[in-house]
């Protein structure tokens, strides 16, 4: 497992030198850092990783993590330890839209498995894979707190609930035509509560 996740990834010094938050992202990072006592800025790590992931291609490359370490003045290993602990941080490249289909109890009771199978067939990928055009990645997720509106999937900041095959079709169509990276930090979320 070790080699698969980080051993094969190289560290590209040139790429690293190019990584820098945009002014808008940096302003957001600074705002977050202001939430804590000055000697506790490591606390900003999770929110800052979210911003970094959205800013640098939807995943956290070793170069990105190294940059975040520099911004927060901590060791790179501290960033890696945290990034690899939480499920929302992708350590490998993903598609522009990552579908995370909830599969825990209530969603399963309401047909989540069928939704997963349907998406697999429709996009011609298996769970964990990305479409060849780099548009969609399919993942399964554990309980996302939509049990009353099951089955559901999350894509970036948006919750898509009470799913039917029809809804999935429309969703794929819409996202494909919009053709942009969907991040958890997106401000134009749609939810269907």
């Amino acid at each position, binding site marked *: *497992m070790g080699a698969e996740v980080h051993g094969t990834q190289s560290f590209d010094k040139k790429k690293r030198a190019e990584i820098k938050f945009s002014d808008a992202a940096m302003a957001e990072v600074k705002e977050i850092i202001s939430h804590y006592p000055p000697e506790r800025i490591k606390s900003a790590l999770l929110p800052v990783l979210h911003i970094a992931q959205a800013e640098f291609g939807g995943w956290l490359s070793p170069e990105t993590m190294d940059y975040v370490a520099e911004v927060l003045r901590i060791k790179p290993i501290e960033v*890696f330890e945290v990034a690899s602990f939480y499920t929302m941080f992708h350590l490998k490249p993903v598609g522009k839209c990552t579908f995370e289909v909830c599969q825990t109890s209530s969603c399963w009771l309401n047909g989540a498995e069928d939704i997963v199978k349907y998406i697999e067939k429709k996009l011609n990928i298996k769970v964990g894979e990305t479409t060849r055009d780099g548009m969609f990645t399919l993942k399964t997720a554990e309980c996302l707190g939509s049990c009353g509106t099951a089955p559901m999937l999350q894509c970036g900041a948006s919750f898509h609930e009470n799913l039917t095959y029809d809804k999935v079709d429309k969703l794929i169509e819409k996202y494909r035509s919009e053709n942009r990276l969907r991040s958890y930090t997106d401000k134009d979320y749609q939810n269907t509560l």
Partner: protein
Amino acid sequence: MKVTIDGVEIDVPKGTTILQAARMIGPSVAPPAMCYYTKLKTSGGYCRTCIVKVTKGSTANPNPMPKPVASCRTEVMDGMEVQNFTSPEIVEARKGVVEFLLINHPLDCPVCDQAGECKLQDLGYENGSAKTRYEFKRREFEGIDIGDKIKLHMTRCILCYRCVKTAEQITEKRLHGVVHRGDASEISTYIEQVIDNDFSGNVIDVCPVGALTDRTFRFKQRVWFTKPVDAHRNCDKCCGKTRVWLKGEEVVRVTARKDMWDEVEEFICNSCRYDHKKKSDWVIEGPSHISRASVISQGHYEHLNELKVEAMKHQKALGFMDIDKRP
């Protein structure tokens, strides 16, 4: 503070943990510990092998504790009563913990350098079951070289966090840590960096299993064919007091000295560990004390000189020739 462990009472200072108190009484009541390490702050609590049953909280509050507690992280209260080996419940629970630690362990002792000085072997032998009930594929990881001196076999790791705490507390810079989570957790550096600083070799000594081994010693000898001696040298980085493992006249490896609980007495520097592999580098004090329970004690004579003097006395008395002057 008075505490009773398995029926033996002892008076200990405030702040003593149950495990420390039990060790003061002796090995007959001391719980096994795989992750706790006296010299590492905040160590312990993870492996759960040292769990004990507190049947009486204290004189002031005699209620028992509802669940077994990790003795390494629980401080004694005055009048506390603890059951360890005398509690069938604890013995059974510990058997469970041993089983959990072993289900994903490769059991590759025949090719593991740690065999013979492995705490997991001892734990399994003393507290485990002879059979496994696990029938699935075990977790697998590739072996990784962390620099030219340390080999990481993640498959053998029990995630005791000792090496992480050592790197944080003993060395200048921590370059490795625990990444991922759950049973996918692993010890890793950030993008396979080389762990290299003056005290990094100590992670090998604190590792209870064969997850972190000395590459300069790798596959050279089974430990029970070597002779450990206590030795020292003048060192400007560390105490210079080490254990030198000899095979004939050859120094096959250098480690820190360990106490009766298999914990490092004083951490040593990499220069002592790796760069002084000649017998003449060291002032040899004499054979190291090895527990009789250890396989290393076979063929190991700690009091050889005294025995020789003793023997000669007898021989002289009997009118034999001096054995050192034989033709």
